[in-house]
C-alpha cells in the first residue's frame, strides 16, 4: 500500500551514486583514486563528504589544502542546495554515477558560500525550516519547539535517522483539519537558466472558492513554462 510513510521513506532514502574525482590541476603526492559514495538526496554536500575530504587529503600536501568545493561540468555546486536538487538541476540527464569534481583551491567566491563547519549547515538548515514554518503556521510550531527538538531534527538529518527526524518533523507537517491545509505552501522553484536563482511566492493550498490546489495549479500560476503545452 502506497501510503505516506512509504513515500516519505522512499524520499528520505533516495540516494545518488556519485563518483568524486580530484580536479586535474590539484597537486597531489600520488595519484588520487576516484571516490565512490551513495549521497542522500535530502542532505547537503558538505555535510556528507567528510569521507571524500579524508580520502583526498591522504594524497595531498597539507599546505595545498584550502576549503573543499565541488563542481560539475564547470558549474560550482552550491552546498546550501539539497543534493537531490543539485543533481536534478544540473545532472539529471547524465549517466550514473554522477561525476563530481573536487577542488581544494580557487574557491569561487562569487558563486559559493563558505562552509567552514557543520554549524553553518545547521544554521542554514534551521533557517529553512523556520522559513517554511513561517509560511505554514506563522512559525508557531517551530517556535513552540524546544531547543532539543530542533536539535533532534538536525541530528536526524545529520545522522540519516529517518525516525528521529520524522518524529519531530511530523509536527511541522500537521495542520488543524478544520483549516484544510497550511497557511501557505512553502516551495521554491529552482531554475538553471535564469538570473533569479529561484521563484518563491505565497501560495495557498486551497483556492478562494474552496477547491484544493494541486502542484499543477501551482506551476500553472508560478511557472507556466514547466507545463507541457499540449496538455489540457
Amino acid at each position: 500500500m502506497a501510503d505516506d510513510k512509504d513515500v516519505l521513506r522512499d524520499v528520505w532514502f533516495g540516494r545518488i551514486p556519485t563518483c568524486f574525482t580530484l580536479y586535474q590541476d590539484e597537486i597531489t603526492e600520488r595519484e588520487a583514486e576516484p571516490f565512490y559514495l551513495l549521497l542522500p538526496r535530502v542532505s547537503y554536500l558538505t555535510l556528507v563528504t567528510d569521507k571524500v575530504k579524508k580520502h583526498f587529503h591522504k594524497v595531498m600536501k597539507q599546505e595545498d589544502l584550502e576549503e573543499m568545493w565541488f563542481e560539475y561540468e564547470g558549474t560550482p555546486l552550491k552546498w546550501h542546495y539539497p543534493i537531490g536538487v543539485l543533481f536534478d538541476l544540473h545532472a539529471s540527464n547524465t549517466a550514473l554515477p554522477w561525476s563530481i569534481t573536487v577542488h581544494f583551491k580557487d574557491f569561487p567566491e562569487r558563486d559559493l558560500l563558505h562552509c567552514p563547519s557543520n554549524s553553518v549547515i545547521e544554521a542554514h538548515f534551521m533557517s529553512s525550516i523556520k522559513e517554511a514554518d513561517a509560511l505554514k503556521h506563522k512559525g508557531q510550531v517551530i517556535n513552540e519547539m524546544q531547543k532539543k527538538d530542533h536539535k533532534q531534527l538536525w541530528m536526524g538529518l545529520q545522522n540519516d535517522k529517518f525516525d528521529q527526524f520524522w518524529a519531530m518533523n511530523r509536527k511541522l507537517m500537521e495542520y488543524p483539519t478544520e483549516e484544510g491545509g497550511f497557511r501557505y505552501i512553502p516551495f521554491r522553484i529552482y531554475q538553471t537558466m535564469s538570473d533569479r536563482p529561484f521563484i518563491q511566492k505565497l501560495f495557498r493550498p486551497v483556492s478562494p472558492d474552496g477547491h484544493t490546489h494541486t502542484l499543477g495549479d501551482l506551476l500553472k500560476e508560478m511557472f507556466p513554462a514547466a507545463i507541457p503545452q499540449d496538455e489540457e
Partner: protein
Amino acid sequence: MFESGGIKGCTMPSSLLWAVDVYGRVYSLSTAGQQWEQCRDAQLEFKRVTAVQQCCWGIACDHQVYLNVHASDVPIRYQEETYENQRWNPVDGFSDRLLPSDRWQWSDMTGLKHQTFESFHLPSENWEWEADWYVDENFGGELTEKGGWSYAIDFPASYTKDKKWNSCVRRRRWIRYRRYKARDAWAKIPSEEPRQLPDPFNDISCGGWEISDEPQGRLSLWAVSLQGKVWFRDGIEHHNPEGLGWEEVQLPGEVVQISCGPGDLLWAVLWEGQLLVREGIGRDCPKGSSWVVVESPSSEVGAIHVAVGVNVVWAVTKDHKVWFRRGINSHNPCGSGWIGMVGEMVMINVGLNDQVWGISREDRAVYFRQGVTTSELSGKTWKAVSVPRDGDRSHSSASTSSLPSAGCFFSGEVRVQSQGSVPSDVDSETERASAGGPTSPKPEDAPKPRIPKVTSDSFISELVSDRESQLGKRDGGTAVASIQEEEQGGEQEGKVLPALVLSPSQSGGQDPQWSNVDLEEAQTHQAVGPASDTAETSSLSSVATYNLGLEEPYGSDEHPLWAWVSGGGCTVDSHSQLNWFSSSGISSSVQSMSLSISPAQTAAWRKQIFEQLNERSKREMENFKHYEQAIEQSVWVKKGTMQWWRDWKPHKWVDVRFALEQFSGTDGNKDGILFIYYTFNEEKKYLHAFVNEVTILVPVLNDSKHTFAIYTADRTKQRWPIRLAAPTELEMYDWLALLSVSCCDSRGIQGPPSRQAIWSITCKGDIFVSEPLASLEASPYPTPCDQMFWRQIGGHLRTVECNSVGVVWGIGYDHTAWAYTGGYGGGFFQGLTSSTDNIYTQTDVKSVYIYENQRWNPVTGYTNRGLPTDRYMWSDASGLQECTKTNTKPPSPHWTWVSDWTIDYSVSGGTDREGWQYAADFPATYHGNKTLKDFVRRRRWARKCKLTTTGPWLEVPPISLSDVTLLPCMAVAKLEHVPLWAISNKGDVLCRLEVTTEAPAGTSWLHVGTDQPFKSISIGGAHQVWAIARDGSAFYRGSVSAQNPAGDCWYHIPSPPRQKLKQVSVGRTSVYTVDENGNLWYRQGLTPSYPQGSTWEHISNNVRKVSVGPLDQVWIIADKVQGSHSLSCGTVCHRLGVQPMEPKGQSWDYGIGGGWDHITVRGNSLEAARFSMSALADSMAATRTAPRSPLALRSQEMNGNAVSC
C-alpha cells in the same frame, strides 16, 4: 474498490438538516451531501417541520400534523399478546369452560382484562399486521411442550411448564405482530374527536429524547394551536411513533411558538412577546409542572421566536435581533440574562449538540452558527449554507438525484423565483393584502398537487408573524408601498434580459407586480457575489463575468428562500467537515462545476508518486548498491525522565531515568534495549529489557498520572508489568509511539494487521492486534500465548469481530457499529506509525456510574448519615472508593462530560420510582421495592462522557448494535458475500447484505424476526447460526446457507439447568456458550444431520467471554488468573489440546491480561502441521500447572493489573 464500497455503505454517517422554503416545499440536506433534496412525496405544502434523528414531524398547510418516520432496515414492530385460559374438569379434561369466578377465557396476562383476538385493532392506517396470531411456545427461556401451555393450581398463581397432578388450570400466550408501514413518507396523524382540537395547529416542536431511555425512542412533541393553546402528544416511543393522543397543557397566556430541547428545556413565546419556561420536566413528568415567565430580551420589542437545546436558549425579537440566554442548565432552565448577538434572523433552530441554525432576515438563506462548542455555546460567526437545491441545475441533478424531469422542474423554478422576495416584506400590510388578493389562484387551480404561491405566501406571512402584519396596518402601510414603487422602477431595466433568457413564456405570464418585487430581491442576493453590485447590471451580465457561469445563466441567481429550518436530526458539531459552505452563492456553483479532487484521484496520484519513486530508486541505486553510504549508521539513544512503579515492596512511584538505545541488528532489523536507571540505597542500578522481548505496550491513562505498562513474556507470567509514568501526556504518547515503532521494527512488523490477526480489546476500549504464527495452534507444542506480540490500533471499541477474509467489525460503548477500513495507527499513533489513508474520526460515549448510599434510622427514616462502619455515602459500586458528583472525573483527560448526573433506573434488580434499590445491609443483593427488613438503600447515578479519537474505522449507520458475528472460514475461502449477523441494540436479529472484503460495511440489513429480544449471536462453519435470547435461552437458526442467508426458522435450545446463557461462539463445528455465572459450556452431540446437538457440557468457570475460531480453537477472557506476583482479572487464555477428535481441549494457557475484555480469534485460520496427541501434552499441561479452570485464590494484591477493570 474500497472507495466505491465506502461511498455506498460506509461513508461518514449522514444525517439530515430539514428545511421548508417559502413555498412550503420541504427539503432535506444530508451532512454527506451538497444539495438540498426535495421531499417529493409530500403532496402538500408544509408550514413547519421539526426533526429528530429517527423522524420528522410537520404541520402541513391543511393544519394537520404529519409524521415522516425514516426508513430503517429494522421495521417498527409491536407485539400484541393475549392469553388463552383453560380449566380442568373431570369430564372434558382441560377446556374453555371456566368457573364463573374465573377470568375470561381470553384475557391479558393478569387476567383482569378481557381480550379476544377481535378486540385488537390497528392503531391507524399506517400500521399493518405481519401475520396471524400464533402460540408462543417459549416459557421463560424454556421450551414448552404441547402447544405452549403452562400450568398452575389455580388462577392467579405461578405457572410452570410441566403439568402436575394438581394442575387445575392452564394458559398459553398468543402473539401477533403489527408493523408500522408508513416509512419515508408523510403520514397524517389521525385526528381525534374534533371537539377536542377546536383550532388548527400553528407550531410544533419535538424533543425530550434525553429525558429518559425508557421506553425506547420516547419523544416529547409539543404543538401550538392558532388560538395560542399548547398541546402535548402523549405516548410517543419507538413502538408507537405516532403517539397516543393530544393533551392540552394549561397556560398563563396565549402562545405563538414553542421550542422543546433534547433534554428538559422547553420554552415558548407568548403573543405579548414575553417568554414562558416550563419547569418540572423530568422522567416521571415529561409534560412538566409549571410555567415561569421570562421577559423579552429587549425592552422595546417583544420576542417572536425561541429555540432551545440541551444547555442553550436562543431567541429572536420582532426587530429580528438575535439573543443568547446566559446561564442555562437543567437546574436553572430560566437562565440568567440575555446577550445580544450579531445578525438578523427570522427564526433560529437549535439542533443536536446545541448547534444553531437560522434563517437570515436579509437573504432568507439558512445559516449555521460556526464554532459552537461546549465551552463556547454561543459560537463565533454565522455562515451561510450555500448549496443548490436538487432542481437548481438540471444537468447536474440528473446524475445526482432522481429528478423526474429536469426541464419541467426548471420552468417551475423560474416561477418560484419570481415569487421569491415576498417574505422579506411580509410584515407589511400591503404585502398581505396583495397576497390575499385577486392575484392568488386557488389551490385547486394548480396543475400539480403543489399549491402555488398564494397559499404558501399566506402562511409564510403567518409564520413570520401574524401579529406583525396586524400592527403594520397602522404604521407600516404607506412606507412599504412607496418602497414598492421604487422597486417597480428598478425592475424594468433589470428584468428583461434574464426573463428572456430564462423562459419567455413565463415572464409574459407573470403578474408584473410580482416579478418586479422578485427581481429586485434577486439583485439583492446577487450583491453577495462580487460582480453583481449594481442594480443596473442584469443578472445575466453579472454572471457572464464568470466565464464558467455562461453556460447556465439561471444557475447562479436562483437563491432559495427559506422559511423554516430544523436541525434536530442533524448530527454535526464544531469538528464536522461539511461541504455546505462557500464564500458566495456564485462561487459555490462555480466550485461544484469545477472538478474537485476525489479520494480516488488522490489514491491514484499517490500510487503514481510511489511508483515513480520506486522507479527512480531502482534507476539510481540498483546498480550501485555496493557503493559506500555517505553517512554511517550508529546507535541512537533517546533519554527521558519517568516515574517507575517499583518492583519490590513497599511499591511506590520512584523517579528514574529512562533510555531507549536503538541499533541495527545483524539481520538488518532494527533492535533496541530499554534501560531504567534507578537508585537503590544510594546505589545506582538499572533494569533493562530488550525491545524484541517486549510483548505489549499498554497506555493506562487516569486523571492523576500518564502511565503505561510494558509487558514481556515473563512479566505476563508474573502478572506484573513494568509500569512507568511520563511527566506529561504528550511525552507519554511520544514514548509510546517511539517504543511501538521500535518494537514493530524489531519484529519486522509494519503496515496494517493481516487478515489472520487476532484482535482484542481492553476494558478501557483500547484495541490491540496480534499476528498469529502457525505454531500458535500447533499441537502438542503451541507457542505459549504469553509470547504473543500485541500492538495497538487506534479507535475505541467494546467488541470487535473478524474473519479470515479481512472483514472486521467493531461496536463502540455507545453501540455504534464500525467497519474496519484497512488502515492502521490513529489515536496517538501519528505520522509514521499511522497510515494516512483510512483513518477517520471516531467518537464513543459511555456512562460513568456512582452510587448514593443511605441507611434507615428510626427517627428520620433514610438519610445520608450512615454508620461509622458504613461505606461512603457517595461511592463506587464496591463502596470502597468515595465518589461524589463533584469529585468524579471522566475516565481520562480524553473524555469529556456530555451530560449532567442523572438517576439510572435501568439497574439490574429494578428500582423504585426514585431510583432506589433496597437491601438489608451493605453489601447485599439489592431489590427494587422496599420491605420491612431493608435498612439500607442505594441508587445509581450516571453521567455520560464522550471520547473523540481517530482510528481505521468508519461508522456503519444508522442501527446501533449490541453484538456482531462473521462467518469464520479458511483464508483461501471464496465467498461472494461474507455472512455477517448482528443483534441490534433493541435486540433485533439482523443479517447484513453484500458484505465483501472490498466493501466490508455491506449495503443494508435484513431483519430476521424473533419472538423476543436477543443479546448474542454467532455464525459458525457451514452457516450454523446460534443465538442467545435476553431471557438466557439459546436458539439455533435452521436452513441458513449462502443461498438463503437469513435461514428459515429458530429452534429453541434449552439452556443448561438453572443457568441463563450470556454469549455464544461457534467455530468450524464447536459451539461454546458462557452463562451469566461465568461458566463455559460446550455443546455435545452436534452432527450434520442434527446440528442442534444434545446436551451442554461444563468446561470451566470464571469465564467472561469465549471466541471459537475457524480451526475450532478456543480462546477465552478469564475472570481471575493467578500470576506469580499478582492476580489478574480479564485475562486472555488459550485452550490447549484442542484436537479434531478432542474439541474440548484439556487445559488453559494464559496470555496477556488483566484488564482484557474481549478477544476474537475468528480470523486465525493458520493451521500448524498436526501431530497426534501424545502424553507429552498431558505432561506439559501438568508442568504448566494449568488447572481445569482459571480460578485462583484471591489472596494476593490486585494492583498487577495494568488496566484495572
